[in-house]
């Protein structure tokens, strides 16, 4: 993406926040919603618009682990790692996903198609274990269901995905 186009998207995300209270954090979240990540240009833009230093913005951005600083994979898989899901077999499910994606922890597949994250609770504990793919929740996730889900995303490759 050309620098100008990227910056324009950032500016739009920051300036078009609908809620009255606009802060460093709300601006970063708006940019993340727009781009899926926080480029250096975003840090600069938020710093100047909020009249704080870039250091202050980095401090906030690096504190909340939902922010990332390189473009994410096209698809996002989140596996719940919370206590209910843990009791219902989340660790085994994680290994299944690792194997299917060729990863050994959180991260992006080599082809950039999928990003894997662990979630501390997806909020559907009554359906544990829970995984989500591009923000669609899948409860009572069996190993087979997870295999199928990952295979589907890999087949979709860089098409579709969770980014708006």
């Amino acid at each position: 993406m050309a620098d100008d186009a990227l910056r324009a998207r950032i500016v739009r995300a920051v300036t078009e926040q609908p809620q009255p209270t606009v802060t460093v954090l709300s601006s970063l979240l708006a940019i993340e919603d727009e781009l899926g990540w926080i480029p250096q240009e975003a840090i600069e833009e938020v710093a100047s618009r909020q009249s704080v230093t870039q250091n202050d913005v980095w401090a906030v951005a690096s504190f909340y682990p939902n922010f990332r600083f390189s473009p994410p994979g096209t698809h996002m898989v989140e596996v719940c790692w919370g206590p209910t899901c843990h009791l219902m077999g989340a660790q085994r499910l994680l290994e299944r996903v690792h194997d299917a994606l060729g990863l050994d922890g959180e991260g992006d597949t080599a082809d950039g198609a999928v990003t894997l994250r662990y979630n501390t609770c997806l909020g559907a504990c009554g359906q544990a274990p829970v995984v989500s793919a591009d923000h669609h929740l899948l409860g009572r996730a069996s190993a087979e269901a997870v295999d199928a889900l990952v295979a589907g995303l890999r087949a979709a490759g860089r098409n579709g995905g969770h980014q708006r």
Partner: protein
Amino acid sequence: MTVAEKFQSIQDAAQAHVAAQESRTRIRVGVALCGHAAGAFAVLDALRGEAASRGLDAAVQEVGCIGFCYAEPLVDVQAPGGPRVFYRNVTPQQVPTILDAVASGRWQDAGEVLGTLGEGSVDSIARIEDGDQWRLQARIATRNCGSVDPGDIREYIAAGGYAGLAKSLSDMTQEELIEEIKSSGLRGRGGAAFPTGVKWGFLQGSNRPNKYVLVNCEEGDPGAYNDKGLIESDPHTVVEGTIIAGRATGANYGYIFIRHGHDGPIDRAKEAILQAYEQGLLGEDILGSGFSFDMEVALTGDSYVAGEETALMEAIEGKRSMPRFRPPFPAQAGVWGNPSNINNVKTLAYVPEVVRLGGEWFSEIGYERSKGTAILCLTGDVNYPGMYEVPFGLTLGQVVNDIAGGVASGGAVKLLQTGGPLGGVLGPDSLEITLDYELMSQAGAILGSGGIIVASEDVCAVDLAWNMVAFCQYESCGKCFPCRLGMTHLLDTLERIASNAGRAADLDLMRTIGKTMGMGSLCGHGQLGFNPISSSLRHFEEDFRVHLEEGRCPTGSCTARFHRPTRTSPTAVAGWYVEEGAGTTPKA
């Protein structure tokens, strides 16, 4: 027009709208988080498509969570004048069969029926009201959950909503309102059980121009989803409760604070606020009373400690969610230095009914000093995981066995994990504990946010402790070193024990670390961060002993796979580093 007259006309319009709906068949689909995870959106799409292609005169509606998460996706069909018939675990393929059955009046033919709800009976289907799962509940805050369309304020109003607000604005002074809450005995549902009326009183004395009501829906406790469930299912009861809190405390602004990424609750909350503005129930001069109140949704990034009241204020101001020193207390200097009152979602969800029906009515429900109900999320190894609202005074055994149906995998209950990770675990004898703040704390239990996770004898206490400690380590905000370093040291030690490489001195080492954390941490995260281990040792020291002395897991459930999330790594923020030749001062 008086406040009462203005409200009456809003109520009349809402009731007329709902009455017009009642002449049609209504089909409701639960699409809150549990329903979503069970596939409810696919069912909803199938129903809408099939109803349209048949030209069916039926309203297909989204509703929230009625609490029977085990039976999701739940679809209920209500013929005009009849009760609601609930089909459980519905698949999209089943949709045509359901519509056929409804059309032919042979309701039983369409799949597994959970029961009916409401006046009347249909096709001799059992009534949900007659089962223990419903009878043992007292649904006050969740009264509308799964029944009203959370996206339509008129349904909430027609069900008695905003009448409490109208009453508080027309007939009651601020003092009377606070007295009403005090007399109800309502205590905070966010963990500390502090009397809500007393807390509200702290703000009253201040005549600063800006005062805030903060609604805490951070809900970081894994295993609990009742705050999100309430906001998703009946957001207006929370919005109304917040406006009433504003009126009582003299605040002029409210924030609902939710974690980014939980789109369902976030969207519902935003929509509810907009609709309340449209009806004149928020904004300038509400219902002509002279009282003005504004509200918005504020989001936080992923952070458990952001749910702590002072850290939450930092996050609203857009900073890192690290707790502040107290004093000054939030009631003196909260958000942007202004007096702020903070309540949990559930606490505020009771307020409309307490005001409408009176504090005395509420105070008669419950047990001793624990008034009203507890909204519980029962999950884990039980037959009927769900969100249930029960009066205080039941035993944990009644809740686990009579409501949640006991252990699903067979065998006995080994432990309960209550009150989020910081709450720790309880042993099997805890089934006799009465749901009551005082009795529970005497028994070493924390009700906290209402999550109760059940585990059977197949589970090793070391394994679950590992999960909780790994969570607490991951979520330490890092401000207090005893918490930041202590949690890491505890996790290292526990992973050693779980993988059978522990040392004899490890238990004492952990106790020393835990004590230091308790003494040297600013907020509950570090102060209580040793609870998962201390409580596990209290009830299940034997599990630790087997790992340490026999070099094996007593149940075989410790996988010794320690996959856990990682915080932002230094290499991930490469953009921060100054490039060669660019100078040495940090970027301004």
